[in-house]
């Protein structure tokens, strides 16, 4: 059964996708890398670097992190605080 995961977008990525969040349907057991393949298929994927930073549940995640139902996922543009 596919897991619908909400993906948060910020700053230049929100501008590029024209949205601050998108919903992605993933097969059960999908990883961050698989989620990124779905996201790239959706929209102006050339705006994303080859390996964008991803956060799962408000902590940085690696590409093999498994996404489960209810996770909060975000694609993090290059940070520029301070």
């Amino acid at each position, binding site marked *: 059964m596919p897991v619908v995961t909400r993906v*948060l977008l*910020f*700053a*230049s990525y929100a*501008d590029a996708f024209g949205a601050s969040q998108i919903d992605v349907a993933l097969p059960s057991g999908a990883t961050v890398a698989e989620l990124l393949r779905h996201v790239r298929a959706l929209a102006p994927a050339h705006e994303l670097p080859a390996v964008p930073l991803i*956060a799962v549940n*408000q*902590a*940085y995640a690696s590409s093999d992190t498994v996404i489960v139902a209810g996770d909060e996922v*975000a694609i*993090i*543009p*290059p*940070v*520029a*605080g*301070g």
Partner: protein
Amino acid sequence: MRAAIVERPIDVTALLAEVASPAHGASSLFLGTVRDVNDGRAVSGIEYTAYAAMAEREMGRIIDEALARFGDATIVIEHRVGTLALGDVSVAIAAAHAHRGPALDAMRYCIEELKRRVPVWKRERYADGTREWVDPTATTVAAGGPAGTEGGTDA
């Protein structure tokens, strides 16, 4: 110990009071402020935005790391979001400790890590009316305008 994303001006005096204690002999403070020129372009203001919930957690993790490295300090971080004018304080880090070495080291650790990994972004507004997201990782001129090679405040 506190880390917050705020939408109001940062009260520096309050932060220093928050970390002060008779057990501490040294306080250190870092302020990032909006600078009038970045990468050769005249800046008129900066819009800051954040993934606020994660930014607060990440700043909290940085504080925990600083305590583990530098000992029994008191540390507070505030990062402001919204539209800031020239000279406005965008980030403040206050750290106090019994001794000056750890007070200074802890503060510096926090600002360096904050710049590296806390999910906050800024869009510079230029005197010519244009605006651009700042990308500290960009090394070439991107389509649509020059990409900053440095952050817009103190990088």
